[in-house]
């Protein structure tokens, strides 16, 4: 059975989703156990797959048994890079599933099965994207995850959320179309869709690699992915979409969607076009790094201007995407930028999860959506605040946390590559994060309102933006506290663990980079 791991990885959530839809009809209470069980199975599978990758090497899986010639069937692939990502996705999904207990069920219980069904299908899509070894198959799974995320975002009852979801649908569709056009162009020039095969063909035929159509294909794929990941000029959809949707959706989407897109970008750069091809002309990479610099600055500064906690976090995501894209495009000699970028995918997933969970709990239990509502939160919710502080410190980049080490690698790459502007942007962003979060700490720590915040008053104008008009519900219907605190603290612990064991993780990433033949020369 162990050779079936890649298939199990996508099939388990699929069957979970189907089961939830089927059984959830009768009784909404079975939805969560099914979801959690499914995700737990997936987590075990992901860990098993990762273990197998690190012991025996890359897992190649040919769906339908169509192995030879390569490219006629669909190729799934788990290697040292995405094995880690799989585990990260599984962990995030598993944790968020706890946070989503009874979230949706409170107001409109009949939507519970749909929510969990979408939830599981989103996970399915993300797993599928991660293990896809086929350019078109990747597109299909991007569609699965996009469609489900549209649904998850629009599920809230607020008008602004619906509008934001609509914007997201438009942008997401444009992004997917761009990607598809790029893949089409690529297919026309190479005659195959398998990533590995495309790479081989481009390596063997310089005239194809040099052709205009391939460059344009790359451009379109890149822009399509950038839209999906909300890279700087194309980031407009993200803040509204993630801040006005239900908290549990935000907790799932914010840590995963953009990071997966970054992963796809790096995968396309390394496995399809190849590092040497991408960095053939330095003009490209300089431009992208500058864009990343602007993204970081714009994201940070806009975050500074926000009054709502979630929205602020959303703008920070925009900045973080700038980190990762910039890092991937640094093109320094020893690939520390790329390494940092890959490590940051994992670190940022955990950081974002932690912060969004905390923001979700603040919003849910204390109805504190604006930063000014957080007064005295350290006293009102000490445990949640500790989780929030860990996430925030990681975001700032304080040493034992994962955030510090990703920044360390990125800065190292920037220094090696001579991209000082990127280093400066990273530092400014850290600075802004520090200012932002310490402003929050100050409010939360020294607030003089231990018992009564104005968030408790009814009709304070937040209902229409909220995912749930909680003021209508008696407090007894609130979900159990552990449902929020358990995932929050776990994610906080993971941030620390990721930081403490960063050397091992980076080691795995380097293993992957070394396994690519065209990169081995860079790494001795």
């Amino acid at each position, binding site marked *: 059975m162990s050779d079936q791991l890649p298939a199990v990885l996508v099939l388990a959530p699929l069957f979970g989703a189907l089961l939830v839809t089927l059984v959830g009809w009768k009784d909404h209470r079975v939805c969560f156990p099914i979801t959690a069980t499914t995700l737990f199975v997936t987590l075990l599978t992901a860990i098993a797959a990762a273990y197998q990758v690190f012991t025996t090497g890359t897992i190649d899986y040919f769906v339908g048994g169509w192995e030879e010639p390569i490219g006629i069937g669909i190729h799934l692939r788990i290697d040292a890079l995405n094995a880690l990502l799989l585990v990260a996705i599984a962990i995030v999904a598993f944790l968020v599933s706890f946070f989503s207990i009874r979230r949706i069920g409170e107001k409109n219980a009949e939507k519970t099965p749909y929510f969990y069904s979408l939830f599981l299908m989103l996970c399915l899509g993300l797993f599928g994207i991660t293990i896809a070894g086929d350019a078109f198959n990747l597109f299909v799974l991007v569609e699965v995850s996009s469609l489900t995320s549209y649904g998850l975002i629009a599920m809230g009852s607020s008008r602004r959320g619906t509008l934001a979801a609509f914007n997201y649908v438009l942008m997401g569709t444009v992004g997917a179309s761009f990607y598809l056009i790029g893949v089409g162009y690529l297919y026309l020039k190479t005659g195959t869709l398998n990533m590995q095969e495309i790479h081989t063909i481009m390596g063997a035929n310089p005239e194809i690699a040099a052709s205009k159509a391939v460059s344009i294909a790359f451009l379109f794929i890149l822009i399509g992915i950038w839209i999906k990941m909300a890279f700087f000029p194309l980031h407009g959809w993200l803040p509204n979409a993630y801040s006005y949707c239900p908290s549990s959706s935000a907790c799932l989407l914010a840590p995963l969607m953009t990071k997966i897109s970054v992963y796809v970008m790096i995968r396309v750069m390394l496995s399809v076009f190849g590092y040497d091809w991408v960095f053939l002309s330095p003009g490209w990479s300089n431009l992208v790094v500058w864009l990343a610099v602007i993204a970081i600055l714009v994201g940070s500064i806009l975050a500074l201007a926000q009054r709502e906690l979630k929205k602020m976090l959303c703008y920070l995501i925009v900045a973080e995407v700038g980190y990762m894209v910039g890092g991937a495009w640094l093109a320094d000699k020893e690939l520390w930028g790329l390494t940092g970028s890959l490590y940051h995918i994992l670190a940022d997933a955990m950081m974002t999860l932690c912060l969004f969970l905390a923001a979700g709990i603040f919003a849910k239990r204390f109805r504190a959506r604006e930063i000014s509502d957080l007064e005295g939160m350290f006293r009102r919710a000490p445990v949640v605040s500790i989780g929030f502080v860990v996430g925030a410190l990681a975001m700032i980049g304080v040493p034992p946390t994962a955030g510090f*080490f990703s920044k360390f690698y990125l800065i*190292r790459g920037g220094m090696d590559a001579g991209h000082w502007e990127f280093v400066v942007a990273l*530092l*400014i962003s850290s600075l802004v994060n520090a*200012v932002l979060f*310490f402003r929050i700490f100050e409010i939360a720590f*020294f607030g003089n309102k231990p018992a009564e915040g104005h968030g408790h008053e009814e009709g304070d104008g937040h209902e229409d933006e909220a995912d749930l008009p909680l003021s209508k519900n008696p407090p007894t219907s609130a979900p159990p506290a552990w449902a929020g605190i358990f995932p929050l603290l776990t994610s906080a612990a993971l941030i620390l663990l990721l930081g403490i064991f960063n050397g*091992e993780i980076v080691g795995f990433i380097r293993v992957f980079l070394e396994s690519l033949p065209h990169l081995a020369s860079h790494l001795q």
Partner: protein
Amino acid sequence: MENTVSSFLPVWACLASLLAVPLIVIFRKEIFLRELSTFTAGFVKLGFVIAMLPIILEGKVITTTLVPAISGINVPIEFRVDALGILFALVASSLWIVTSLYGVGYMRGLKEHSQTRFFAFFAVSLSATLGVAFAGNLLTLYLFYEMLSLATWPLVTHHQDKEARTGGRTYLVFLLGTSIAFAIPAIIYTYLQADGDLSFAGPAILAGNDLGYLPAVCLLLAFAFGFSKAGLMPFHSWLPGAMVAPTPVSALLHAVAVVKVGVFCVIRVVTGIFGIDLLRDLGANLVLCWIAAFTVITSSLIALSQDSLKRRLAFSTIGQLSYIVLGVALLHEFAVEGAVLHIAAHAVGKITLFFCAGAIFVATGKKYISQMAGLGKQMPFTMAAFFLGSLGVIGLPPSIGLISKFHLVLGAAEAGQIALMVVFLISTILNAAYFLPISYQAFFPSKDAEGDLVDTKFSWDAVREAPPACVIPLVFTACLTVGLFFAPNLFLELSNLFFEQVK
């Protein structure tokens, strides 16, 4: 020469105050036990430090490795106690006990809120300070440096009113901001240049590197500004802002722990990272010298115009810190020794002055110098101590300040920097100009100082001192200022030893 002793003493010294934190929190209702635990921790800590003293005086170095190697970076977290570290640790831990006593008096006298939080974070700050003092490599140094910034922030913002919050925000933004913006890239750059070696053991980290002039200057400035607790001029304004803190905090942290950690880091950078030879060969130290000199003069001039006593003290501190930086940057034997001595000298003197300011506030509620005329009659001990403290800071006999300043001036002269020597002298005059009038006015008030001046005759009935818990410490430190003038051997020996170690 480097004969090292492996021992866990520094760890225990560092942990002593940290371990007191749970006790302080547990006994938050029983005030007596709470303060007892503070004092116990203080004495235990001092005991550990003193226990290390003989080993250091033998010319040995104590090392401990806490974490073998941080994954990914391959830099251990280690302690390494040398002469400079033990000197600083000695000053900080002994003054902590005094300050605790003073803090008890001050906090009770003013009936402050959240005293438990106050003492708890105080203890954490002390741990961080000792961590910096004993840090064995740049990363450890940086970690404890940041820990100190974070741990002192609740102390600065203790009052929780608008002014305190603003001050706290400035404090944090400046300290964290500069450390993120300058120190981290400088550390990473050093790390890359030195191939992953950040340890202070052995020769200086960058000693063998062929660093160009411009990178060296940039790196030096990045460190100097990055460790902005040292208060060099463009990044000094956190210090006056942080004066909103309760006076014990200002006293210990802004005369001893925090600011001294800043200059301590700069000393470590100059001696441990660049090495004296490299800097001298490149001539990069002069840039730092002149920035420090500028700070000295400017801050003294600003201090002259301040009416709030604590603000005047704050600007004075900025100037005095730059003495130390200047002394180190001169790279000459006497100057470096003077700088190291000045850490102790200034600490003792300035803490006295802050204690006095706090005592005055507790007793009379006065904050401004213009209100303090004639106070000597009312608070004779306090104002006498103030006088002695100001002597120490100015550098007049009989005080330890004279010794350190003498070394500094001598060092400047020996190094051939006559202009910088002149800077020292001018600033001494300025120091005198802004301190001595306070004492003078206190004892011999002029007619129209407070409008309703009464007779100048002294009587014990008019004495309304602060609570004894406030007065005893300040008298003690004032005595210390004078006493060390007569018995400076320990500190002289340590500073000498330090220069031998880094030469």
